[in-house]
């Protein structure tokens, strides 16, 4: 069966969508990704949709769902490289995806993940220290 590969890079998971998403593929990705987050104990997920040219309300909603699920599993999600046409379509569909973090490209997306995850770890460490004290 067709699947979207999920790559692991340290603490982060990298998903590059290279094909046109159809509904079933999106649901499979949702399943796979949530499983992988647990398996890999990932702190961040980066979804690159720069090759995605067609998007509908279902795919948009699935992306939003994936982001929310990842957050529940303690992983930050950032969606990178959205094409102008896709952005316009989503806005016209009334989906502003308020819960999703976005970045221009993989590089700035990674940068964002590193910063936020590092912040989390710092603050976690700090709380740990304070409780020990």
């Amino acid at each position, binding site marked *: 069966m067709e699947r979207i590969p999920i790559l692991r890079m340290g603490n982060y998971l990298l998903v590059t969508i290279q094909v046109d998403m159809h509904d079933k593929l999106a649901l499979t990705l949702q399943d796979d990704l949530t499983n992988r987050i647990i398996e890999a104990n990932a702190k961040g997920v980066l979804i690159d949709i720069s090759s995605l040219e067609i998007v509908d309300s279902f795919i948009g909603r699935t992306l939003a769902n994936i982001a929310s699920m990842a957050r529940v599993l303690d992983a930050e999600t950032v969606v990178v490289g959205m094409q102008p046409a896709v*952005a316009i379509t989503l806005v016209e569909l009334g989906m502003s995806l308020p819960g999703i973090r976005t970045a221009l*490209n993989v590089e700035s997306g990674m940068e964002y993940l590193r910063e936020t995850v590092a912040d989390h770890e710092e603050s976690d460490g700090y709380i740990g220290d304070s409780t020990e004290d």
Partner: protein
Amino acid sequence: MSKFLEAIQANRKSILQDWTQRLKSVDRRRDLLDDRELDTDAKNVLSAIADVPAETTPDDINAAGWQPLKELLANLSVLRAAKGFTPSETAIFVLSLKPSLFTVARQQWGKDAGELFLEISAINDFLDKLALHTTDSYIHGRDQVIARQQEEMLELSTPVVTLWDGIVALPLIGTLDSARTQVVMESLLQAIVQTNSRFAIIDITGVPTVDTLVAQHLLKTITAARLMGAECILSGIRPQIAQTIVHLGINLEDVITKSKLADAFRLALERSGRKVVRVDKSNGANTMSPRGV
């Protein structure tokens, strides 16, 4: 075939001569059209009238037989519209054929008043229709010119400028309507991708009015830019517009707004980890541009 068309065919040469003379004598635009072009035009039009298929009647100028003539006149008018002729100058080209044809009609049927009247009114009717068609085509040509100019203005009016590495600005000037906003949105998003910009400043100093529709368009653009990973700052909101926005109940709370473009630029610089500092004058004079103080 009607009688006057036969008469035209028989006297083609003399009519053409008479007509071209008349065309040259009326006050026409020598600066726009030289004599040779005028001669060719007149000759082509006259042959299109004379060489019409035998079964075609002049009563119905929408008949298939008149198509070549109509196309010829339409092209001519469109060309003249583009050259800068006035509508009446264009129509006079056809109408000045009337006296020439009337002369021929008098020669042919001068002795029979009833016949002469019938033919003259037929000629009159026919040429009036052609002149109207010419005017219609002229206006159509003008419309095309206007549409093209509008398109060009649309492209001209939406420049996306790069203010700094990773900061683009879109100074909007003029009223925003749906068609224009679409272009604005597309060119801004395209520029964000091309320049890899994390910040986009939309400056609406030059937008005279902001109504709910315009605000909605702006919000859409800002949301689309956010989806692509760029942050939008709205600047240049005049006091009057701020009042309108609040009175209309438009929610701009999720949008960063600044009153001046400079403030927005400063914010964008700050957020991208940059700072503008004043250079110490004594040091600055040496290191600054050679044009200096």
